[in-house]
């Protein structure tokens, strides 16, 4: 394991996978044994494949577990279960995909961005954060050589890019000619609910990568459910990627 600081609160870790670790697909995650003193592992999206047999995690310091991971010496062996969960639905050839990330949500879309670029798909990316310090667009695969301005950023406080939430950018993007045929999003629940609503109105299919507290990570404990139109679904095994038209959006954001 190696690590690099990519923002005041985030690290990019690169792990050497065990030989039998299958190649992860975008959307999938790993459940990581971050500390002996914690009852649960911590789930993180696979945020990139820098080379065969390796994978990245992009982790925001949120509490005890993420700090314990960051405090591990470089070179530590870390218990990792995965890859777990389902995958993003890839777009039709020729379609433009719109990736919408809020804060650390960038982590959940980074491997997708890599996959889409490798597959020759056209993508546009909207990245938002509360302040410029929280923006993580610089860890996304390089935009060099793109024909159109494929990356836009927004900050709530206006310290960088568009002054407002990323959904402001989204409304604009969906209204433009050559509008994206698919939306992928990851970020805080309120953002996902907003993005889902806008996409639905525009009639564009939208998938979201959701976060929920997890225990088993494999569908056994039923601890990580989210309300869908067909009942509660496990984020770890039925997700973490959900078609937002399936979600009960009112229950996504907690009072």
């Amino acid at each position, binding site marked *: 394991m190696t690590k690099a600081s990519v923002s005041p609160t985030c690290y990019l870790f690169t792990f050497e996978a065990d030989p039998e670790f299958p190649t992860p697909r975008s959307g999938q995650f790993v459940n990581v044994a971050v500390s002996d003193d914690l009852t649960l592992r911590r789930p993180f999206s696979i945020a990139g494949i820098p080379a065969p047999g390796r994978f990245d995690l992009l982790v925001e310091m949120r509490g005890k577990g993420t700090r314990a991971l960051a405090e591990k010496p470089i070179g530590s062996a870390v218990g990792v279960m995965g890859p777990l969960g389902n995958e993003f639905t890839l777009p039709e050839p020729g379609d433009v995909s719109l990736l919408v990330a809020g804060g650390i949500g960038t982590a959940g879309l980074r491997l997708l961005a890599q996959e889409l670029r490798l597959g020759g798909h056209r993508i546009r990316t909207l990245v938002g954060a509360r302040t410029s310090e929280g923006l993580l667009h610089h860890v996304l695969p390089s935009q060099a050589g793109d024909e159109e301005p494929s990356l836009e950023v927004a900050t709530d406080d206006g310290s960088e890019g568009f002054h407002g939430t990323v959904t402001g950018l989204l409304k604009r993007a969906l209204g433009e000619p050559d509008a994206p045929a698919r939306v992928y999003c990851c970020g805080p629940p309120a953002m996902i609910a907003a993005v889902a609503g806008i996409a639905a109105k525009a009639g564009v299919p939208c998938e979201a990568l959701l976060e929920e507290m997890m225990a088993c990570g494999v569908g056994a*404990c039923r601890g990580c459910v989210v309300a869908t139109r067909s009942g509660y679904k496990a984020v770890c095994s039925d997700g973490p990627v959900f078609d937002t038209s399936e979600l009960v959006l009112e229950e996504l954001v907690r009072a």
Partner: protein
Amino acid sequence: MPDLTTRIGNLTMRSPVMLASGTVGYGPEYEGIIDFGVTGAIVTKTITLKLREGNAPPRLVETHGGLLNAIGLENVGLERFLAEKLREAARLGVPVVASVAGTSPEEFGQLAAAVGERDEVAAIELNISCPNVERPRNPVWSDPAAVTEIVSAARAATSKTLSLKLSPNTSDILSVAEAAERAGADALTVANTLPGMRIDIKRRRPALGNTTGGLSGAALMPVNLALVWKVAGHVSIPVIGSGGLADTGDALEFLAAGAAAVQVGTALFANPAAPAEIVKGLETYMEENNLASMDELIGMAREERRICTETT
């Protein structure tokens, strides 16, 4: 080689290390991850007559040394359990203990009859910490009369081995244990989770969607170990220990206290290899201490069978 074979009524297991209800689903979820080959048995998620959606999320919150869960007995219901899940579980090659919960003695009887007549079911665990039975003032799990009715109904419905899963949330577990033994239970699982809660100060709301949940994990272990000690010293049917055990040392404490077998639950989440490690660890311990069979291990910390007294 020491012999870890463990018998609970008619249930014969390769080792005393079982997997606790609700933490392994129906089994297949953990295929390829848990080494079922060495474990004694899987206890399935608790099955109810009808499918249950479970509680509103969040359903989990970590606590210091423990975990609160408020799953709300989400399960596929008896019908789908019998039609699909049971077959799938049986394919894992490890005895399957069906956990069931009813809202009345009759329902417990119905469930026990239905799962008991299936060959794939090696034994039945009756879960009486059922949230459906809403009796806040005198919950079923601390009411010997209610327990007598439930166990009697299940006993009349099946000849399969029956274990009653007790709750730690009672000041008088011995009366409940006695009632279960008299009514024909073959074993007692001691014990389930303790009611607990956390508050999310940012949201100024209970952290769990259901307000309260059940405390499991290492934090709970001393409480359930004391109950195993107490119950095993009081009844003559075998006791199965459950509560926070995570390694060989913990398992030895439960066995030394008088448990005939143990269940690993919450520890699976951090370490799915825990059951296999414990089985190996018990073998090593028995070898090093010249113990040939489980009988020599069980209750080895009990000088005489005595009732312990609580003190602060």
